[in-house]
């Protein structure tokens, strides 16, 4: 168990911020990369072209990882 939990008294946006903050304690640089990209996928309406967005996100992340 990670020990991370959402706070019932907070809004979804606030809880997502809590989660990203938690991830930053695990790996700050990767958490920042995730934070910068995931909303493009999470805000996509049901049935939209997730695959192309995911591929694009992963392409960008891969490019950054390869330059590390």
């Amino acid at each position, binding site marked *: *168990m*990670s020990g991370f939990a*959402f706070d019932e008294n907070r809004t*979804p946006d606030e809880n*997502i911020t809590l989660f990203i903050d938690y991830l930053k304690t695990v790996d700050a640089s990767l*958490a920042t990369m995730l934070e910068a990209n995931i909303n493009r996928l999470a805000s996509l309406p049901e049935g939209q072209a997730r695959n192309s967005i995911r591929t694009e996100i992963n392409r960008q992340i891969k490019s950054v*990882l390869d330059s590390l």
Partner: protein
Amino acid sequence: MAKYFISKLQIEGFRGINNENDPLEINLKSDQVNSIFASNAQGKSSIFDALSFAIKGTVPKLANLQQSERAENYYINQFHSGAFATILLTFQPDDGSPAVVIRVKRLANGTRAVDSPSGFATPEQLLASLNSEFCLLDYRSFLGFVEETPLKRGRAFSSLLGLGKLSAYRQALEVLSNTRNVNSDFEIPVLEQQISDFSNRKGRAESQIRALYLKLTNLQIASLNDYGVIVNESTTALRSIPILTNLFESNSILNVDFSAVKSIIRDAERGADQDRLRQIGLILNQINPIDVDSQETNEREILKDMITTLKDDFSKTKGSLTKAHYEASLKLMSSEEWRDDKACPTCESALVYSLPDALKKKLEQFKTVDESHSKLKRNWYDSRIRMKLNQLATSTHLVLDPVDLKRAKELAGFISTAAISSENLDELIAIRMKFDATRQQAISLLEGEKEKLQKELPPSLVALTEQVGVAEDLKREIENHSRLTQELFKTEKKLAARNRWVAFISNASQVFAQAEVALSTAKTLRLETSYRNIYQEITNNPDVVPKLVKTVASEDLHLNLERFYGKHDLAASALLSESYRNALALSIFLSAAIENSTSAFIVFDDVTSSFDAGHQFSLMEVLRTKIARPNNATGPQVIVLSHDGLLEKYFDKISSTAPWHHQRLHGLSPNGSIFTQTQSANRLKFRATQFLQAGQIDQAEPLVRQYLEFKLLEIIQRVSIPVPVDFSIRDDRKMVQNCINAITSAIDLYSGASRLILTNQQQADVTNTLIPTIVANWLSHYSTAAGSSFSPHVLLGVLNSIDQVADCFMYNCICSGSSQRRYYKSLSTKHCACV
């Protein structure tokens, strides 16, 4: 954040609502339950679709159609000449700020345009913020919730709990951490394969280096980590060879020019002469076997015999022209053109024998010639004479007489055409012998040159050449090993970085999922009492107790029954009747709506279809007492759309005793106009009058009917005239008749009891003049659908008559300080003491 209640809805040109230049206008109240009733095909669902299009940007029932149905063409009303649709929404914020008007248009080209006539800066964003799981609910919403897969139901439920964003985030993380996606996008297997390849190739290079080094220096390699020792020892080994010392004085095997090294060795061993010697050997190997052997003598005799046989066979014939003549004659005599076998087709003289038989015998002789020729050609082709002649003629190491070459080719050609003679064959053999003499002369010269070179050349430097070759291979393998080491390092580093991401995103997805499950489970449990109570109130059945079960490891949500007539833990979807499943879904949605008090309004469209009257009543009571304002002070504005006649009775009744705002739709959908009962009666009368004055009876007729219904129902409601139980569910086309019957019966009743408040004149006008006029001029024609017998003047008279009827149920009231006509409170009382 302020809540935006819908205070007015205006629709024109959308779906079944034409209302060209005269929009359907519905006023709604935020502090009361709103109900709108319409008979079938009166535009009720078009209102729901219009709200859906305005708020969600789509109409699901159209969006789900097959592409071939061309749903995009059916948003705009088919009869609207402007070919556009307009939906005007007026919102009243609960924070006291001014009303916001938002206009949503659907244009002929399918585009959606949103603006705000009231000047609201971000109308599209406001509509988006109002779009929630609850705002528009119809029968399909509940049916879908029950019948969906547990995963889709779980995601829909997350949205109901206000956790839709977390669910979307969870799905995004799952997509990003999906093993197959990650492996594919980050090319993990590709990198692993590359690493494996590089490792294998590096291993092979290492083995090569060890073997080559041992061969060159006779030493074993201790470690391959440092190439310095290997290079130094190898260079030293080559430097110790006298002819190479200078070259390796300042160079190592890594930077020396190996072509220069080979050149030095080549010079030392007279390389050009060595090459010539090798070349002579090759030439002799080629031309030595083309000698004359004994088999050729035998072949020569056999071929000569065959030529003699051919010539003999041929001499028995009379030549090839004769053959052609025979063949032509036989063909002619076999045809219909020549019928007499004993007549010569050339000279037509009479014969004593059958000419075709004779011709066949002659042609047999030519067949023998052909067989002899074929045999000769086959033997010639297989002969060693032909093969060796060919080898000699094509050898590039012999210089042959071109005249002989040409003649030999010509003679060989005679064999193909059967023109060969024994003399020709002798001549061909003689040329072959001349070629052989040339060959022997060339061999003699080459042998002499070879002997001379062998005497002059120094001892071979093969061993040294081989040593240099080993050094060159060693250099190449060291470079290869170095390159592979670098590639391997880079690829391993790349894989490590990508695997770091894979581990990170996988962990993130798991952590998020666990946290989301924990949160939604807690919220689900908190809803439990609420949805069970609502379910209980709708169904009034304590033997069925539902339970939502959230799966720990996934987003699945199962609809279970904790109790079912004494049994436990059963599947609700499989067990419950359609109405009970509908009730369960409704209970869950409504409990979630209470929990999430952020929704400003909920529109229900025909959600009671599967309910009987009792359950309909129970549901409406739940909406009124638990969900909607004002009983639930923080609850949403509730708008109920229904076509159910029984339910309308409830609406009618409740609207006179509770904060409930009820309206009825009338009209001519889809090509005419639709109005609410409360929509200006004057407007109905005004438009009907306009049409009648223009002689447009067909357009006026529905408006006249609506106006009659409006005024008669107004009298019934305002004067509290009792109506039969089935009043509202009778044939809609007979509503005017129903109203008149109710009114005249009530007048008779009150009059008989001497309690009628109407003056004698009013009673006489209603019963003796006005009602008979309406019956005669409208009802008797309309009820038989004999509309063609209407005339504009008659219908204008009907409009005036109904106004006069309404006036007969009024008295002059001066309570407000000025005189105004006011309806009686009932058929026996006034509101005040005014006369």
